[in-house]
């Protein structure tokens, strides 16, 4: 990819101390201080390595902004699909490093031709952009079982269609998709630029089925990050899998070749759910009730049986009324690994506000993203548990759902999905 252009050469020259570079796509040890997080450090502007054992954007410390897009593949040609994946990989490798897409970028080509790159990220730094791809069940087989691209036999057992959960109210037009692409960055314009350019490259071969913007990461994926708050005002995901939990990542996040689909070794499965929140109703709920529903204190995020956010909840302690302090139907209890056969998730969700709904309410909520080794034993039982019992259900509704098998990372010269199509 010689001849490609740097969006911001200045940064390349002057950007000191890219602490985040040490994080890498492989989840190596973090050298990322809390000071970095305050946004004063240039690390938030710098690049995240694209190549690695695992795809970036999973254990990478969660960036602040998201643009997620699900694509329908419109070509029926396997060769076209592979060509698209190769072009996408090349463009992603460039854009994540702060370079313009294509050979001639946004302004370097013929004045008679539309520019290769759409240009709105010119002068913007890499902003820790990561682009992560996953393959949906429908890429492997059609609804009636037809093998679309000669890969039906390689569909992993773990990529089983998600079951219907109680109270699901899914919009098919906003669910599913043959390919999912997650673009995360600390600048929303950089994330949108990435999706927009990938969508453009895809015309004639794939098109966007649905897409979702998100802001204000709702999870921390590193101990160096504080736990942010969701739109209900609570710190959620304190117990999230983090890149420092090496052993847990190996047993709970990354797929192994022994799991059945060799091509997925080093990859991970992503569940995406758009969860609409009735925030107006929530805001009329008393503080005590809100805390009971979560099982955590709103101010500190500490479990109701502890003092600090990261204190382990003690589900056995009862209050004066003899009932457990952390209620049986509280969110923290139902989602806790202890009540889900040890199942962990790496959550990477974002808040969303997609305008308003015409009834005087914001169309707001959580775009839930969770990576895991096998949804059948992780997301599915946890969600079943939550959907049945969680008191939070009065205030939330799952309105879309998608599942993707995110392949392992690529090295220079390889393309996304090379282990699947190779």
């Amino acid at each position, binding site marked *: 990819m010689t001849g490609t252009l740097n969006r911001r050469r200045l940064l390349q020259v002057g950007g000191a101390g890219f602490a985040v570079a040490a994080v890498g796509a492989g989840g190596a040890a973090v050298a990322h201080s809390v000071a970095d997080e305050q946004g004063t450090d240039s690390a938030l502007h710098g690049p995240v390595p694209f190549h690695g054992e695992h795809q970036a954007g999973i254990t990478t410390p969660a960036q602040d902004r998201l643009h997620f897009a699900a694509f329908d593949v419109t070509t029926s040609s396997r060769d076209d699909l592979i060509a698209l994946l190769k072009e996408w990989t090349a463009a992603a490798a460039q854009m994540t490093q702060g370079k313009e897409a294509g050979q001639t970028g946004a302004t370097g*080509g*013929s004045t*008679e*031709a539309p520019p290769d790159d759409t240009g709105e990220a010119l002068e913007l730094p890499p902003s820790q952009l990561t682009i992560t791809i996953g393959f949906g069940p429908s890429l492997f087989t059609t609804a009636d079982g037809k093998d679309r691209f000669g890969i039906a036999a390689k569909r992993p057992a773990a990529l089983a269609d998600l079951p219907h959960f109680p109270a699901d109210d899914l919009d098919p037009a906003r669910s599913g998709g043959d390919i999912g692409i997650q673009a995360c960055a600390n600048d929303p314009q950089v994330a949108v630029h990435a999706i927009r350019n990938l969508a*453009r490259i895809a*015309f*004639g*071969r794939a*098109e966007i089925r649905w897409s979702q913007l998100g802001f204000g990461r709702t999870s921390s994926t590193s101990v160096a990050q504080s736990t942010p708050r969701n739109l209900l005002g609570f710190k959620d995901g304190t117990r999230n899998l983090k890149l420092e939990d090496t052993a847990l990542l190996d047993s709970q996040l990354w797929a192994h070749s022994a799991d059945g689909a060799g091509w997925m070794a080093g990859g991970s499965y992503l569940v995406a759910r758009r969860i609409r929140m009735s925030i107006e109703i929530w805001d009329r709920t008393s503080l005590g009730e809100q805390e009971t529903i979560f099982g955590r204190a709103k101010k500190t995020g500490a479990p109701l049986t502890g003092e600090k956010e990261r204190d382990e909840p003690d589900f056995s302690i009862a209050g004066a009324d003899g009932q457990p302090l952390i209620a049986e139907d509280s969110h923290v209890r139902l989602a806790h690994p202890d009540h889900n056969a040890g199942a962990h998730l790496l959550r990477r969700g974002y808040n969303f506000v997609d305008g308003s709904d015409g009834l005087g309410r914001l169309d707001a909520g959580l775009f839930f993203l969770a990576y895991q080794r096998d949804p059948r034993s992780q997301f599915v039982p946890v969600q079943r548990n939550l959907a049945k019992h969680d008191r939070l259900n009065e205030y939330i509704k799952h309105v879309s759902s998608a599942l993707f098998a995110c392949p392992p990372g690529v090295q220079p010269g390889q393309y996304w999905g090379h282990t699947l199509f190779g």
Partner: protein
Amino acid sequence: MSSPRPAALLAAGALVLGGASACASKDSAGSASGPVSVSASESACKVSRTELPAGKHTFDVKNQGSKVTEFYVYAEGDRIVGEIENVGPGLSRKFIVELPAGKYEGACKPGMVGKGIRTGLTVTGDAAPHESTDQKLSDATASYKKVVEAHSQSLIEKTTQFTDAVKAKDIEKAKALFPVARYDWEFIEPVAGSFGKLDPSIDAPDADLEPGQQWTGFHKLEKDLWIAKDLSRSGPTADKLLVDVQKIVDESKAVTLNPLQLANGAKELLDEVATGKVTGEEDTFSHTDLWDFHANVEGSKASIAALRPVLEERDPALVKELDAGFAAVDAELAKHAQGDGFVTYDKLSKADVKALSTVINAVGEPVSKVAAVVAKDKK
């Protein structure tokens, strides 16, 4: 000239095979030199010789049918290399065309509509000099000029029929002619649209008007026809439309688009489809958007066809992409053909609209690359 009405066009697709094989198989009857005679009727198009040496050829077209006919010689991609129009029943007319080696098709168009009854022509040898790129570019301009002339002529004829029906207060006839008259308009829109204020006075939708501005043109009559269902006060609008269209036609005939303008015109036409037609916004009262959609696509194809020899030389892979892209659009449009035209846009499902949008977006990308290929300095 032809007013390639959509239905006839789509229906003709099916006829082509039968017609072509019937007359392409036997050409030994004709002499090996001298004029190529063409015998045209409603159902047949007999060409005396289909294997020709490269060079100048005279085509002698005899109309043995009962409808006015025309005969075209097309190069690949339906690029017009020669034509004769308005051959009345029982009449003969001749034209001369220079044919370099290659594959061609002759087409009789009884009634001057549709794709015509096609016959394959093979030209071999090297009597004609290999065209330079410059020559190909100037040919593109000349070839497209013929297209504009033909559609301008058809536009004024069909518009006259339409406005006559409006003035006769024949609502049903006017409704039937409305999308037909608009077909040629939409086909040459990049040319017509270049004449500033005439475009809005012919084609402005209600919503585009500024306060105090007088609403005229097709869409005013469309509203009279479909919403008011009253033509009692439509006469002046019809008169004004005809005057405006005549002006456009006169000016269009004088316009010569350079190759770059052709390429950009092809793109603009698809942009029109992607922004206005696919959304069903163009003909909000009549819902005849698919006629306009089809005309824009055909107009885009015609521009690309004129440029084809240059594109073949410079970027054959792009030509393949364009062919595949337009074929996908044709196939999608054909699903909605009905009678002499198309179903109305309000009959399309969301999935139908999405499928149309998908194929338009897909062909839009390669079409957007044509201008740079045309503009590229000669190697």
